[in-house]
């Protein structure tokens, strides 16, 4: 048995890289700095080692040939999931370009709320180290932050030392919308987060009023969706008084119609504050199961985020039309490729179409796909790169064990070559 230290995680999105992992043959055990997200993801047992066609175990070359045959016969394949590392996503892009597929990251419908706001007006954002050292006021909008990333507070807010704050335990945390599920947001000095709860669907109204108050506009109502105007007024004053306020949200958690307008509202509010003689930044939460990786790699190879179509021979981007679930439901696709190297629970959408699954060893199906090729997990079975939620830092994933499983890139490149 060996122990590997300073292991980076591709699972939690916040780029924790201080895990210690004991490796005993193919079995892994997180011995230090695990969390509810990372520990089970690392410790997930490896089961399948051989590819299957129509449920029968076959050699990798046979499975690859079958996948290529299905794609050759296809007029409009879709590649869903897209949950893998940088090289795996490069493989997705090459295969999509060659086969004229749609590329659709599994978290794009959530991320679309951010992209629509970005592509309409833009934003001012920050990254984890700036939060760790500068943030003196954190506003959490519509998300249970510790449920999203269990170690966020420990690593980036209640860090003992910071370069620019004398006492990190005096940082102020306010929640609007969902209340926190635990006490991680309570500071080491015992300071509890202030919570202004409201229904998710009321966030558009609450954020609109908050922005109006930040701008000094008169608001006549006294109660906004259950929140007292004076409470919102206090938040507005705190945002303006902070030296380095941060407003965070998770697009995936804003599960209501036209949530992009709420993202836009809070992003524009952040911009407003930066014209009021202080600094403030947005901080979108995401980065799970390779979603930032998918968007980054699709971004530089096609110039568009990871919902693009290649069947015209060139990339076309449409955040609504190329939703793979909608395409499957509307009969607009004829082959599904599902790529998911991280999470065995994230199975392909139900469909009667020919299905090729390139996924983490151990995935089980209610309906056996036509082709199943188990692949190694980036950061466990092979080295690689994955993007953290703040989209700037790509972490270098380590190989922890010798499983013999091919990588996503190996498999997708082989299929592309076989076309």
């Amino acid at each position: 048995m060996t122990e590997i230290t300073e292991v980076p995680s591709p699972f939690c999105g916040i780029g924790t890289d201080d895990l210690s992992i004991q490796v005993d043959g193919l079995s892994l055990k997180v011995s230090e700095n695990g969390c509810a997200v990372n520990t089970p993801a690392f410790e997930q047992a490896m089961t399948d080692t051989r590819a299957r066609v129509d449920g029968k175990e076959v050699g990798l070359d046979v499975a690859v040939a079958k996948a290529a045959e299905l794609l050759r016969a296809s007029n409009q394949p879709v590649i869903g999931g897209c949950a893998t590392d940088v090289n795996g996503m490069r493989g997705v892009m090459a295969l999509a370009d060659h086969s004229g597929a749609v590329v659709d990251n599994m978290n794009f419908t959530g991320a679309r709320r951010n992209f629509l706001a970005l592509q309409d007006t833009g934003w001012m954002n920050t990254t984890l180290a700036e939060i760790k050292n500068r943030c003196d006021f954190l506003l959490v909008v519509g998300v249970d932050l510790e449920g999203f990333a269990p170690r966020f507070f420990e690593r980036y807010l209640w860090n003992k030392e910071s370069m620019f704050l004398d006492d990190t335990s005096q940082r102020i945390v306010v929640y609007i919308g969902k209340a926190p599920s635990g006490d991680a947001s309570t500071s080491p000095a015992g300071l509890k987060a202030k919570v202004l709860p409201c229904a998710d669907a009321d966030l558009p109204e609450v954020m609109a009023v908050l922005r109006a108050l930040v701008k000094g506009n008169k608001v006549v109502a006294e109660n906004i969706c259950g929140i007292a105007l004076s409470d919102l007024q206090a938040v507005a004053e705190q945002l303006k008084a902070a030296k380095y306020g941060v407003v965070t949200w998770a697009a995936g958690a804003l599960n209501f119609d036209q949530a992009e307008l709420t993202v836009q509202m809070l992003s524009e509010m952040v911009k407003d504050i930066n014209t009021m003689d202080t600094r403030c930044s947005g901080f979108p939460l995401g980065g799970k199961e390779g979603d930032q990786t998918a968007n980054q790699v699709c971004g530089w190879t096609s110039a568009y985020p990871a919902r693009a179509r290649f069947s015209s021979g060139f990339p076309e981007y449409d955040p609504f039309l190329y939703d793979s679930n909608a395409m499957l439901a509307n009969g607009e696709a004829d082959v599904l490729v599902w790529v998911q190297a991280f999470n065995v629970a994230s199975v392909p959408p139900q469909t009667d179409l020919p299905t090729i699954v390139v996924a983490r060893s151990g995935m089980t199906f209610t309906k056996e796909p036509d082709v199943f090729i188990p692949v190694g997990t980036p950061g466990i079975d092979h080295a690689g790169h994955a993007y953290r939620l703040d989209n700037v830092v790509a972490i270098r994933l380590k190989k922890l064990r010798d499983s013999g499983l091919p990588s996503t890139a190996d498999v997708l490149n082989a299929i592309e070559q076989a076309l």
Partner: protein
Amino acid sequence: MLIKLTGGTVYDPASGIDGKVQTLYVQDGKFIKQPASDVKIDKEYDLKGKVVMSGAIDMHTHIGGGKGNIARMLIPEDHRKDPVHRSDITRSGCGHAMPSTFTTGYRYAEMGYTAGFEPAILPINARQAHMEMADIPILDKGGYVMLGSDDYLLRMLTAKKDQKAINDYVAWTMNAAKAIGVKVVNPGGINAFKFNQRQLDLDEKNTHYQVTPREILQVLATAVKEIGVKHPLHVHGCNLGVPGNVETTLDTMQGIGGLPMHLTHIQFHSYGTEGDFKFSSGGAAIAESINKHKNITADVGQILFGQTITASGDNMRQHANHGFANPNKWVCMDIECDAGCGVVPFKYRDQNFVNALQWAIGLEIFLLVDDPWRIFLTTDHPNGAPFTTYPHLIRLLMDKSFRNDMLATIHPEAQKMTTLASIDREYSLQEIAILTRAGAAKLVGLEDRGSLAEGAWADITVYTEDADREKMFEKPDYVFKDGELVVVDGKVVHTKWGTTHIVRPDWDTSVEKDLQKYFDRFMTMKVGNFKISDDEITEDGRGSLTVHSLNGGT
């Protein structure tokens, strides 16, 4: 494979050859001496009457890194106007202002370029820069790592660490980020913006660190020289775009006290405050100062009219200019106690007085700097214009009557504020070869590139003479990369992967102890996970590293 290139008119300033008819021989990717008469030639190209230069090198082009990808994400409407089809040998993509990586490689190669250098690699974002550049086919690449607004350096300056310690940190960072040069952007200004400072002049103090841009420039320029890096400190100065910044720029040149320094996109730093609009050309004063200070080099950052997008590490200035965003959307980021970025779409218009004068100022600088070895042809892609405008820019430099015809179409008040019409200079082919080949290779510190001499790598561009220089330079007859034919008649016929150029200056290993402590206390990753290993560049079997020598023989 032995290739013979017969009878072309060769422009090879690195070897002092100016328009001489010569035959070149290439074997295994490099130029060789004329072989014995009994040696079999595998392939001969008849280049009689053609112009032969080495492959062009763009020494400052934003082709890799996070801000470029933000720029791509921000403007899907711009990509839709320029879709790029896949072919049997090339990948699909999008072009225009901020092209996809594959399209970037093809389009550079199709205009005869064989190398490009990303000038603003944030240490913390260096992996992304290299990963993006790894997906740029054909071209060689490399980059300059950004320092000067990172809290680590500013803490060192406040703590009065000696120059030796700073040299070690700079050398360590260059190794960790796999760089060939060092860049500073708005020295200390990106950091000051995080403390809510909105401007930072050369002698203005960062309110937290009490350090000035002048001090930062001094220690970094010294470090680059002392650790032996051939590319001088690459400086994006203070006050980008601010009327009156010409004084700051002149002071920056004067103040560096003879240390080697490269001033980038100097056009954006050459503005006076005269005239009815309080905006005037400092082009002549800047050119005069460059002529006088032999330690100074500069690239122009020419603007050309049309839609583009600006992507810069200088979020202080980008934020100040966000009101000019066209279309009206923009992004600013503070990044990892390391730096920042700002992305603002721009549409430069010839009937806008300021834009028109910016255009003229860039050309004035090109034409008034005497020494072609110390001035470089850039648009600061995509900030002044996309790199695909280079053939047009070359025509403006080589053809006075064309230039004056263009001048006559811009905002009339801008025409009155420039001396451009009175400048007779026309660049020669040899001078263009210096700006875009020999000079660039020398400035970046590349051995065996930018030359057609025996032993050099065979990066070659062959043009057909045409009085219309734009036509001539936009469609080479042939382009060879490492001796392989990649472009015929301005179209890619074969693709390959270029190398990544780096240097590996020495550093005292003790520097990592302090860095490890700093990373553990304040950063969000382990120092060991921060450093980029060689195999990250090479493990996919496509990438390679080419290590260049340092001054002083190390």
